[in-house]
């Protein structure tokens, strides 16, 4: 049961659609941010712009929040926020 779960994690049927689906070490390219204007503005200032490459890094113990490497710095986001940062399907 545990093993098959792990396998499913490494062989994903579709590419990650949002930041929250990235595993540690994986990266994706931001497509758009489906969030309220205030937080979108803040995230864009921190480098989460359409077209920028984001790499998932370490998370807090327990998996949430997670640190993301973007535009030369590291920014921590909760899962609930990361789930609304959509990634491009091809990059």
């Amino acid at each position, binding site marked *: 049961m545990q093993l098959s779960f792990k396998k499913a994690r490494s062989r994903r049927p579709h590419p990650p659609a949002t930041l929250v689906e990235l595993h540690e070490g994986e990266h994706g390219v931001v497509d758009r941010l489906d969030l309220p204007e*205030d937080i979108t503005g803040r995230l864009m200032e921190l480098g989460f*712009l359409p077209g920028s490459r984001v790499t998932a890094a*370490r998370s*807090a113990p327990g998996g949430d929040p997670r640190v993301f490497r973007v*535009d030369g*710095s590291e*920014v*921590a*986001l909760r899962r609930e926020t990361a789930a609304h940062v959509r990634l491009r399907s091809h990059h």
Partner: protein
Amino acid sequence: MSESRATGTITTAAPPPPAAAPLPHVVAIVGPPNSGKSTLFNRLTGMRQKVANFPGVTVEQRMGRAKVAGREVYVIDLPGVYSLTPRSEDERVTHDVLHGEMEGVPKPEAILLILDSTNLARHLVLAAPILSLGIPTLVILNMADDLRARGGQVDVPSLAQHLGAPAALISATKGEGLDTVHKFLAGRVAVPAPVELPVIQDVPKCRQWAGRVGDRARYHPPAPPLWTRKLDALLLHPVKGPLIFAVVVVAVFQSIFSWARPLMDGLQGLIVASGGWLERLLPESPLRSLLTEGIWGGVGSVVVFLPQILLLFLFIGILEDSGYLARAALIADRTMARVGLQGKSFIPLLSAYACAVPAILATRTIESKRDRIATILIAPFMTCSARLPVYTLIIAAFLPERPLLGPLLGTRAAALLGLYLLGFLAAFLTASLLKSSILRSERAPFVLEMPPYRWPTLQSLGLRLLDRSKIFLRRAGTVILLVAIVLWGLAHLPLSGGKTPPIEDSLAGTIGRTVEPAIQPLGFNWKIGIGLITSLAAREVIVGTLGTIYGIEGDTQSVGLQAAVRKDLTIAGAVALLVFFAFAMQCMSTIAVVRRETGGWKWPAVQFAYMGGLAYAGAFIAYNLVRFLTS
């Protein structure tokens, strides 16, 4: 703006531009968070600085004077911002000061824009809105040492040309490259021709512009900060991380007891010796009694705790300056979310271990208003440094020192740790109570940049300790001194037949005995009662008060404060007193700052009543529990 922005590249030896704007008197330091603003500010102003608040808002304002070519320049250290879009209170302040719209703050005549050279492309985004202001600006690329060490580079003269503003590569921590900053302030740096800037409201456009400028200046970003990643792999490790944190905390508490001891003993010896010298020097008189019993006994017993408090501030300063605090907020976020708050609330709560007042000011970074009020309301539960004298006095008087975990942890440090946990628990439960009732709100998002780890600088730590010593000694010289004098007077009046009454019959004794029935259920007598009343001003005042009372009382005059306290409290009463101090809100400064931050008396009144009630109930339960267990 001067019309003389026509000369070419920056050559440091260039003569001052003709018809230059008058030399700046007011300079603002602007930059993103973690770019080294405060380090530069400390470098420029040294000890000629003061911390105040911007009028009308809660954002802290640091102003200082710098000597530049024999001239004085006022330097304003503005809060860290990513843009000039006024989204948070910090950004509004920076925006208003730079536009000259902040009442009581002169409009800056020059700007030092400080950016992190190891992350230049993103930090340059801030250059667009700042340069658009039209105020003469020096673009400072900080962390030059880090950039070099990690193999990055940038062509500074070329960058200056493409920005249309002079630029300098410096290391504020190492003090490298500061001559250009001084030359700029002295008007001796040539200014390149202005360039066209992007529309500042459009973040993607600004970022593209910043990238282009960086490329043209042959900016080569450095390799990733490997040390930071290695440290994070350890400190954010699910098992090792929390374990390391626990060991560090335990070691801090042990050292507060053991390292500070020799210094405190030395200070105590000095105070006792000087008091004795004074007593021999002066003839028997009320003045001598006031000086030796009132002031030396009262103020002296508090001043002794300075080394301990400085040690605590040193540890907190290291945590703050090294970048660990952001990791602590990250780790704490899930737990904080459980009580309805977020990780950012954890940063003010950690600094409340030093003092609740700056902690309450630090809550301004919390965007949600309800979360901010909840954090303000629970901050005074965190064990501040003013509780330390009370805790150490009682613990040292009643608990013999025995090793628990070898040399790492003794019984006394463990008891202290327990009291810190008690405060934390009270804060936590209160937060959960507030957030599930009157301050319920939507979950606010948590977005926090993790800065690279950096070595704290000796200068910054030194300035923190100096600042704290000044505040502590000022308080000892004002509030505590005043309480000591008034108390001495009350303890010697009314005169009966020209003679001072026994202290029980004096005014102070009468006041103490009036409140005694109310506190007897907690195991406190009238002397502790007087201490509880005076400690409403500030917690550590009780130590001074007891020092004065025991100084006046003949029979306890010769024995130390610890031994005297042992005579007045049972073990159950001592535990009750500790619990009382863990919960009660005995601090005028905190009440005043909460009133100002929340804009009225409602919240401080609620907080005072709630914490007082909890303190009374907690002490009552503790007293009876310990009595039951020890009977």
